[in-house]
């Protein structure tokens, strides 16, 4: 089984803005830790040992967030970390304003600059989160089956057989003309349906398909069949691309699909069907969760197994 690659739609301005904010965090962090006295006079607060401690603590937080952003300028989490930090700063400045011993004019200036930066932080964080939502993931997996490409292709082309080895697929109807209707169980128990169309069909070599517009789980995929060097078997390589759908239940299905684990398992069962005639069960594998390796207490019909 081979690796996973994940591609995302890019927002052109995001990395620049995020990187800028990252460096700002680091600069402020270093200043707060190294020169708390200078900084307190710039901000307009009294220089006491407790303000120095507070500033140093804030500096440490700024550093951590800054490093987080610079190591992954497209990740929303560190950017939201900045927004949270801004809120703390604003609240602290607000409290400081009430103390007459502090320089109110300077404090007001500081408050205004923090507000400005907060606005930028919120923009960047929202952008990063949006980009993630419209993410697209690509998964590639390969397996070798000890049967010739023509036979492997024919089994794959027989879409209506997919529920035999694809764990989450409940039914597939071949509508003819390369169209098919799919029903899948979601991890939450709900169902998702979609129509797919063949966009490439070279017998014994390659199949490609994509979902028809309006699908709940938009995706496209292809599978290639290559004879092994000994001329006996077939190397199957599947490539799938999913667009992240909205909604929690579909999101969960997406996460499962995009992890590649689902495809791996489905491919192993596909191989079992071709090589041994059916999906192989152990005493523990016929149960949903972890189960001791002992015969089942429930009658077979309940397990939905076909013999």
């Amino acid at each position, binding site marked *: 089984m081979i690796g996973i690659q994940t591609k995302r739609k890019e927002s052109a301005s995001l990395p620049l803005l995020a990187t800028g904010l990252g460096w700002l965090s680091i600069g402020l962090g270093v200043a707060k830790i190294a020169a708390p006295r200078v900084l307190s006079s710039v901000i307009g607060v009294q220089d006491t040992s407790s303000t120095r401690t507070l500033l140093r603590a804030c500096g440490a937080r700024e550093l951590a967030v800054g490093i987080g952003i610079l190591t992954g300028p497209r990740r929303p989490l560190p950017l939201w970390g900045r927004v949270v930090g801004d809120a703390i700063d604003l609240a602290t400045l607000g409290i400081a304003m009430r103390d007459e011993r502090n320089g109110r004019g300077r404090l007001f200036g500081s408050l205004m600059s923090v507000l400005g930066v907060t606005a930028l932080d919120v923009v960047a964080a929202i952008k990063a989160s949006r980009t993630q939502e419209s993410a697209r993931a690509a998964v590639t997996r390969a397996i070798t089956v000890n049967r010739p490409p023509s036979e492997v292709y024919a089994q794959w082309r027989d879409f209506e057989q997919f529920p035999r080895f694809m764990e989450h697929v409940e039914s597939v109807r071949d509508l003819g003309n390369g169209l098919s209707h799919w029903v899948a169980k979601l991890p939450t128990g709900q169902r998702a349906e979609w129509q797919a169309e063949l966009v490439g069909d070279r017998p014994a070599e390659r199949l490609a398909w994509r979902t028809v517009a309006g699908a709940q789980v938009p995706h496209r995929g292809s599978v290639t069949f290559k004879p092994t060097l000994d001329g006996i078997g077939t190397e199957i390589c599947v490539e799938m691309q999913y667009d992240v759908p909205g909604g929690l239940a579909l999101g969960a299905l997406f996460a499962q699909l995009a992890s590649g684990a689902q495809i791996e398992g489905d491919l192993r069962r596909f191989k079992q069907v071709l090589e041994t005639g059916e999906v192989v069960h*152990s005493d523990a*594998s016929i149960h949903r969760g972890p189960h001791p390796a002992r015969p089942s207490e429930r009658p*077979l019909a309940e397990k939905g197994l076909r*013999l």
Partner: protein
Amino acid sequence: MRASCWMGKQDIRVENVPDPELLNARDAILKVTSTTICGSDLHLYNGFNPTMEKGDVLGHEFMGEVVELGSGVSNLKVGDRVVVPFPIACGSCAQCMAKNFSCCENTNPNAWLAEKMLGHPCCGIFGYSHLTGGYAGGQAEYVRVPFADVGPLKVPAHLTDEQALFLSDILPTGYMAAEFCDITPDKVVAVWGAGPVGQFAIASAKMLGAQRIIAIDRFPYRLKMAIEKAGATDVINYEEASVLETLAEMTGGRGPDACIDAVGMEAHGHGAQYLYDRAKQMAMIELDRPIAVREAIMACRSAGIVSIVGVYAGFVDKFPLGALMNRGLTIKAGQCHVHRYLQPLLERIERGDIDPSFVVSHHMDLEDAAKGYEMFNSKQDEVMKIVLRA
């Protein structure tokens, strides 16, 4: 039915569990007549396999009578008396076609887990944790046997259970260990571990023509059996003498031409290195205690063969890779491809080349499985192999 269940570390209980049912077309259900406890079971007993679940039915060495058959099995009939290989093999994947049955690609439903731990998955095994598929084992009254058209061997009526039972694992395993050694009459073979597997490795080395076979262990009764029953020519009790020095003396300083590890991950030893390995194993930093295999590598003649059939699970420390590389050693290892050896070894038993029942030291009822495990683990009462009757 009654079955011996793993309930935790050193906690085996015989419990009521549901009877097995046919799950696949190529399944058979056996009524178990004889089963036994293996050194491999001890690794589970002592908690060295993190993928055991409370309640798992144990046992991978068993034989019995066919009582039910799936629609896909045509070579057996109800009433047949069969012995079953411990690896479950489909017979049709590329590895099975190449006769590497314990590397079968289709029989481990937890292949993803095995792949994470081992790089690529291993086959399914009866009663041997979830890493090898989560199959219920045969230390039970009944057992489900998948791919019954591939594995089980019909046992001729004139052979007793004790003569046929060990075809399920330890006789083929010992034989494979010896076969790995490319034995010719001029070769010296040393065998670490004089347990049941070691005894059969010695006996097989002899069948394959070795004239000098050295057995290494610390239990005098096991070393005695190695000489008197299995055919060893020399023994070393590692509690009384240095293994490396004695082997050098016995081989004119060259070292044995081939070294067999029939000990595995729970090797026993002395001194700081042993304590260090035990501590690391307890902290789960090191899964295996590779004491015997380290010694086998250091002892082996340059350009010789190290044959590993003792079971290991994960990663080891202080592995003498330098010795292996610079002296051109060859390592051969594996879970036994039992299916390969069933027919030829059955013929050898029928011809009288070997009577495997010599390792049987105790008979017990399946109900006493817990006592059997404890006894076999602590090597009490000169225990060698305990046959359980279901």
